[in-house]
């Protein structure tokens, strides 16, 4: 029941949107001025825009300035199609949404194919979009020609009292749609894929998240919602110009709103829209003679400094108090007549709520899970060691990877059989990690073939290789920093070969955490657990993909002897559950202890291969490896 609070909130908003126009009509314009509808429209408009932006940029972390372009396409679709082509408003709205979605998909097709177009480069790419569309709108007489387009007032449906009620309801429905999409995503694989992409896109792909398609879904929805909302807003404004539409105002506003409200929470942008719109309106109404923008700028800067994670992150710590305060304060202020103006009363209520949100919380003082000294430890091993079988789990044939002139991997052919623990050793720069990256598909080989379970993997994206049964860990652990330990594992389960829902995945995650001995850390964030635990988390997350082959890339680096022993136990346990392992390791003691066979790499080539005892006494190995890095053995 508690989990469906979001749907209840969204349904309540829907009811408000559907009922308010008639309520306003019943109350009369004295007590309920038409302007309240305009202000409510604006809050909902910015909520739609910011929520739409937040799907790709907040959830997915792909920061975009393209909102002005998507919004503007909607605006101009409405203006041109109804103003010059006599189309009906709802057709124009739908076409505006679809055109914006097409534009978004084109951007995605170009940008998401390239690994280089992430982060700030993506942001800058989208920054150019509004400027290009601005120039196009000015140059094309069919769109605008520079002089602006009058948006005709559409015929108001007969059941609605006024034009303003109509625009409010249309804009409100778009906002409800945007919030519903956002909430739905935040509870399903579509949102969680983005959370994972936000934290670490390569890892997301490696645990089986089809990152490209999920980014495309997100940008398509961002474009669609921005276009729909833009089209409706064109009716409200009545007259549109290229410079008034394709500028940085909308992108900057949605960023400000989403960051202030909170990017991680589906309702964050809505909360931000409420605060920013009211603050702006009150400053305009305040007639502060050149002070209003100064206050706005300072409040903005201060809020970002104070609450970099947004207001919603603070509200969720005491939701009931906040909800109560922000509703009761204005009600009290208005009924007692202290502040008769409803908008001022609401603004004060929100200000009080914000101040309460910044009071120090008791919860922060002591985190019981943290204070207890913790050592991860697993139970005694059960079952027998798995014998090495004949089946080939993974095979590389003459694989090469050249970076410019550097031959990182230069013709490696290895096989991993069922039940094997293959120790992969070699001095620094011998190509071990590159080989792991090739097998997991992080980048394609320059030449050669790789097969997993008899299926060629060259050219497959990493998530498909993950689904074939290859999992990996990273030398420096790369957990999803904003997800709890449990959810780190749950994401991997959700995107496994058999897709699972969030609830089911969370339940199953407990098994994997228990398997590595992390059950009591399930609710912690990765930043709050120690290195050893993070490495165990890597293993649990890898196991959650139900691999046939696990690539452990220096999973024991930096641990103390007690932790090493524990980790070795976990690796044995993984092995006994029937998973073949490639163990990249510096610590020869560990490799000797665990590996059934050892492959030594040197300068990208296989130097030796065989049982540990034999390989470790091979003079060539001693010379190439031990001679150069004797300290590593200690």
């Amino acid at each position, binding site marked *: 029941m508690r989990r469906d609070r979001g749907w209840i909130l969204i349904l309540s908003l829907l009811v408000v949107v559907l009922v308010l126009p008639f309520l306003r009509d019943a109350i009369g314009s004295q007590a309920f001025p038409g302007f309240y509808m305009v202000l409510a429209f604006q809050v909902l408009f910015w909520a739609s825009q910011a929520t739409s932006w937040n799907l790709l940029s907040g959830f997915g972390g792909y920061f975009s300035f393209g909102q002005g372009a998507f919004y503007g396409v909607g605006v101009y679709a409405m203006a041109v199609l109804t103003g010059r082509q006599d189309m009906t408003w709802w057709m124009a709205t739908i076409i505006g949404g679809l055109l914006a979605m097409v534009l978004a998909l084109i951007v995605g097709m170009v940008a998401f194919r390239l690994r*280089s177009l992430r982060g700030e480069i993506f942001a800058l790419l989208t920054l*150019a979009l509004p400027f290009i569309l601005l120039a196009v709108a000015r140059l094309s007489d069919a769109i605008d020609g520079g002089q602006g387009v009058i948006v005709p007032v559409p015929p108001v449906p007969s059941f609605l009292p006024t034009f303003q009620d109509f625009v409010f309801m249309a804009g409100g429905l778009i906002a409800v749609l945007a919030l519903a999409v956002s909430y739905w995503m935040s509870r399903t694989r579509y949102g969680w894929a983005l959370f994972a992409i936000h934290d670490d896109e390569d890892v997301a792909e490696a645990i089986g998240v089809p990152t490209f398609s999920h980014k495309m879904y997100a940008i398509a929805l961002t474009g669609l919602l921005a276009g729909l909302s833009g089209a409706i807003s064109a009716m409200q404004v009545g007259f549109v110009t290229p410079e008034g539409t394709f500028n940085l105002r909308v992108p900057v506003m949605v960023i400000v709103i989403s*960051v202030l409200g909170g990017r991680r929470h589906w309702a964050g942008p809505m909360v931000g829209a409420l605060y920013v719109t009211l603050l702006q309106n009150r400053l305009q109404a305040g007639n502060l003679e050149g002070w209003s923008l100064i206050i706005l700028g300072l409040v903005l800067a201060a809020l970002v400094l104070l609450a970099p994670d947004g207001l919603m992150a603070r509200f969720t710590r005491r939701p009931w108090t906040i909800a109560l305060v922000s509703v009761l304060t204005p009600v009290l202020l208005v009924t007692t007549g202290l502040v008769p103006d409803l908008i001022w009363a609401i603004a004060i209520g929100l200000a009080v709520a914000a101040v309460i949100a910044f009071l120090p919380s008791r919860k922060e003082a002591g985190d019981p899970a943290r204070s207890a000294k913790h050592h991860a430890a697993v139970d005694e091993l059960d079952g027998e060691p798995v014998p090495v079988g004949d089946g080939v789990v993974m095979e590389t044939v003459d694989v090469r990877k050249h970076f410019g002139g550097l031959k990182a991997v230069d013709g490696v052919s290895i096989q991993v059989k069922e039940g094997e623990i293959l120790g992969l050793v070699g001095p620094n720069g011998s190509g071990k990690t590159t080989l792991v990256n090739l097998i997991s598909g992080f980048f394609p080989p320059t030449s050669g073939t790789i097969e997993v379970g008899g299926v060629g993997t060259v050219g497959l994206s990493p998530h498909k290789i993950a689904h074939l049964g290859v999992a990996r860990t990273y030398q420096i652990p790369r957990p999803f920093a904003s997800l709890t330990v449990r959810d780190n594992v749950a994401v991997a389960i959700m995107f496994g070969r058999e897709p699972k829902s969030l609830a089911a995945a969370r339940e199953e995650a407990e098994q994997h955490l228990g398997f590595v001995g992390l059950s009591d850390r399930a609710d912690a964030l990765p930043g709050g657990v120690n290195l050893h635990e993070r490495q165990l988390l890597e293993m649990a997350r890898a196991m959650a993909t139900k691999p046939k082959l696990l690539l452990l890339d220096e999973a024991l680096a930096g641990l103390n002897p007690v932790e090493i022993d524990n980790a070795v136990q976990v690796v044995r346990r993984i092995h006994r559950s029937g998973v073949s392992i490639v163990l990249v390791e510096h610590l020869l003691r560990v490799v000797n202890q665990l590996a059934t066979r050892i492959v030594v790499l040197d300068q990208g080539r296989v130097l030796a291969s065989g049982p540990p005892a034999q390989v470790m006494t091979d003079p060539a190995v001693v010379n190439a490896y031990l001679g150069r890095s004797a300290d590593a053995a200690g």
Partner: protein
Amino acid sequence: MEQIQAAVSGALQGSLFALMALGLSLTWGFLRVINLAHFGIILLGAYLTIELAGPTGLGPLGSLLVTVPVLFVAGAVVHLVFDRFEVSELNSLLISYGLLIVIIQVVQNVWSADFQRLPGDINPYATQSVRIGDLIFPLPTVMAALFALVLVVAMKYFLDKTYAGRALQAFGQDREIASAFGIDHRMLGLLLAGASGATAAIAGMLFTLRGTVTPDSALEWVGLVFAIVILGGIGNVAGTLWAGLLVGAVSGLVAIVWTPATSPLVVFTLVVLALIFRPQGLFRRKAAH
């Protein structure tokens, strides 16, 4: 001939925008802050030049004696805030946007929203020109190009040849490694932010040599300056200058071959193409990874 004249004039004009972009690119590349307040500092540079050049008898160039140190401090103070709160790259964008709004409004409160310009007797450069063969170049843009060249060479020397400069480069790439340099990177960061404020003072002064300024001018620069930062490669000093010249030349050429109205379309399409094919910037030899 006409085309060459337009392209070269455009390139020179572009060097002014490169100068504006320089400070932004530096702090972005090496300190990981996207400082929109930089545009506000340039605006202050322009207004202070107008305020000082006439009444004090310093002239626009002489007013640099005051504006450069003052805006050096301004740049450093802004960075002090970022540094103190360990602001992330994204949040620095928002905080500095807030600061930019504040600066613009303060400028308006002090100098009014109306257009301001340097009168001709104080600024004789506005309508003077330099002639090379058949080509004629407006003196203010030639001055901008010279200033840009000197600053870029000086900055390049500092970054590549001095220990502090190399430490800064390391800091831009990896903060943890940078601490191993044993240099107080906080102090270095402040110095760099101050230096970028100083470049803003010069850019602001050069803007007033040829143009009329309003508080809103700061926002008009944003698009073109960002385009130059992107094309040049973030943190790439020489690239910024090249990008400014390129954008200016292309823009001028398009303006004369087609129309000035087409220029923004071509320039920003170029930006998109450059990002797709050369995401590390047009003028960087080695890849970013």
